[in-house]
């Protein structure tokens, strides 16, 4: 079992020589690496919680690298991708990068270019993962609110005054104040501005 903190680089290339070489290169700089001949083999693997990225060959037997990229988006798997290809053209690289690829490298490439791209990709993955973790935690806080409190929070972040909220939900202004206090506490928000920011992260749909 490898240490949990070690990031992993996944390599998909139908050319055995190529994927072995890339894996070896990645391992030589102390990163974890796993290689696959096809995209399906990669999908069959258990997803990892560690930071990771994907080095993907554009030309694959069954499904091209670009199609595989779209497939991953469809199934909601977010992983930074570095494309490598024996001969890529400009439209192909543009399409890859627009779809969120980190880098598009032409074989043969300089090893440092690939390693830099891998570092960048892992960095991006780490950021994404942190963000996801934060959102996850916020969700936990939000889940702790009662239905009334969620309703009040929604109205608060939409900019309503206590009085307005009271008339909206048919309660006294004092009751609104208590709910509002609970919300601030449970959401661990120090100020109204902070609460609005948290709500934004949670992508709450605010009532009009």
């Amino acid at each position, binding site marked *: 079992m490898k240490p949990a903190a070690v990031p992993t680089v996944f390599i998909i290339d139908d*050319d055995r*020589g*190529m994927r*072995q*070489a*890339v894996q*070896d*290169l990645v*391992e*030589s*700089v102390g990163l974890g690496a796993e290689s696959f001949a096809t995209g399906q083999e990669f999908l069959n693997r258990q997803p990892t919680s560690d930071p990771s990225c994907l080095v993907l060959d554009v*030309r694959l*037997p*069954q499904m091209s690298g670009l199609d595989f990229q779209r497939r991953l988006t469809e199934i909601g798997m977010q992983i930074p991708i570095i494309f490598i290809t*024996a*001969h890529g053209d400009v439209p192909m690289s543009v399409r890859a990068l627009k779809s969120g690829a980190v880098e598009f490298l032409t*074989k*043969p*490439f*300089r*090893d440092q270019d*690939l390693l830099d791209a891998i570092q960048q990709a892992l960095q991006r993955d780490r950021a994404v993962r942190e963000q996801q973790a934060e959102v996850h935690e916020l969700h936990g806080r939000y889940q702790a609110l009662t239905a009334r409190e969620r309703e009040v929070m929604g109205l608060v972040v939409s900019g309503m005054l206590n009085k307005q909220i009271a008339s909206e939900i048919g309660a006294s202004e004092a009751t609104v104040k208590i709910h509002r206090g609970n919300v601030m506490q449970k959401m661990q928000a120090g100020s109204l501005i902070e609460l609005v920011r948290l709500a934004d992260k949670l992508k709450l749909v605010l009532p009009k």
Partner: protein
Amino acid sequence: MVRGCLLSAGSSGLAGGTRIIITAADMTERKRADEERQALSLKLEESKARLEEAQRVAHIGHYEWNLIANRVTWSDELYRIYGLRPQEGPIDMAMVGEMIHRDDRERVFRAAEEAVRNAVHTEAEHRVVRPDGEVRIVQGLGTVKRDATGRAYEMFGTVQDITDRKRAEEALKRSQLYLSEGQRLAHMGSWAFNAAGFDYWSSGLFQVHGLDPRGKPPTVEEYLDLVHPEDRDFMERQVHKMSVEHRDFDFTKRIVRSDGQIRHVRCAGVPLTDGGTFKGFIGTGIDVTEQELLTQELRRERAYLAEAQSLTHAGSWACNFRTGEIFHLSDEALRIYGFDPSQGPIPFERLYKATHPEDEPALRGKFYGAIQARMDYDLEYRIVRPDGAIRTLRSLGHHNPSHEIGEYIGITMDITERKRAEEERARLRQLEADLAHINRVNMMGELATALAHEIKQPIAASITSANALLRWLAHDPPDLERARAAAVRIEQDNNRAADVINSLRSFYRTGTPAEREIVDVKEIVGEMTVLLRVEADRHSVKIHPELEADTPKILANRVQLQQVFINLMLNAIEAMKDTGGELTIRSRRNTEGRLIVSIIDTGVGLPAGRSEQIFDPFHTTKPQGTGMGLTITRSIVESYGGRVWATVNQDTGATFHFTLPGETEAHE
């Protein structure tokens, strides 16, 4: 009894033996009577002489036969008729009997006896053999005189020599016979025609028309009925013309005999005039059916020949090149030279002058050389027609077996089109060769991309491995095991790149002669599978080589064989480019030891009913295709004595098959 006496007046002295009876009534008148007698005697002499003259001219003699005394007296002419000298007194009947032709003798005597016994007149024609052996034909007439009791006492008659008349008659008869027989043999007859219609038909003419010669000549209406319906109008016009113009005529029409037989009858006639007055026509009718059919046959054959010549653009001729005399020049020969055959013959010099100025010097040398050597010749040259058109001719001349110097028979053909077609074919062949080259160059272009990938892959891998190796060495301490592993991979990758290059090197050779070597088909299929894998992957095509172990090796040019596989496999991939699919390559040895390769795809199949046309040059279904791929494939396969064909698969797609002779077969 002084009243009278009967005197015989010396009948023997009188020709014709006329009995003269003189009566002397009175002796006293004797003197006067003597005078009268003298005058009478003179007269008698005269008439006797005249009678004799008349008998001689008419060849008629007479006789008296006294039946009681059985004594016969002859006139002088009768003696002459019998070839005897005239004499006095009675003639010896036994001798006469001898002189009558033996075959006629009995008949003549019987007729005489019969006349004496029963009849008054007798008539007999018989032959007489003169003492010198000459045979004469005579006609005898006789009258028997009887007394009051009916007893015959005398027979008087004449004998006429009718030999000349008889001979003339026989000659006439014979000539008539000859004529009618001749007419019969010649299938002809004669006729006479006047205002009332046919006056006379010879028996030959009846026979020509299939009619009974004993019948009467037909009327004009009856005659028209005999004429073939298709010729009847024509005949009617001719009859009308005859009656109006009174001129010679000669035409042929058909008649239908009563048995349905159709005969061609040539009818010729001339007008008959008497003192400038038109009397009618006489003429002949000749059955010319055989000649007519022969003529028609000849005409037909000539037409066939002319047609054949016109179709083949071949004209026949016969001429003497030394004298310039042309014996025969077919219409087509004239047409070949651009002349209108209806304008009549063209002199040899004019035909020769049509020779193209550029070709004339060479032609002259060969042509006159052949004539002088009395050799056959076969020459090709161009001519300029009167309208300026240039044609290429081939002339074959055969020195006439008559061995007259300069005499040749031969044919001249217009080979312009053939020549043009040959040139066109040569041009197409060149084009095909060029295109084959272009096709290969184009294919190289397409393949270059694939090749670049194929070669780049191991190179990129080895570079990356080298990078990794350096990094393992840079570790502290250096990780030698990982470094060694990387080095091994580098070696493998580089070998892989070298293999790809090796297998493709042959494609870069162009224009080298097709050297044949023993080729392992399995090896080639392996190479091609590698080569086309990228292309196949791009279109999601899987390649399955299914090569039987006993696939024969063949004697072939490696590059050409690679081209065959590349063409067929690329085609298969092309057929599946929108759908993906499977490309199966099967090879085996058939019972004859030949190699059979099948390239099976699961693509769009073949255009319906065009499985042969797809091999034609420029036949393509692809927007960018040259249409030469399969053509080249076929020409390569066929150059090895093999065959290539396509079939439609039962489920989906098409299969291209080709056969090639096995190694051992090719060695033979």
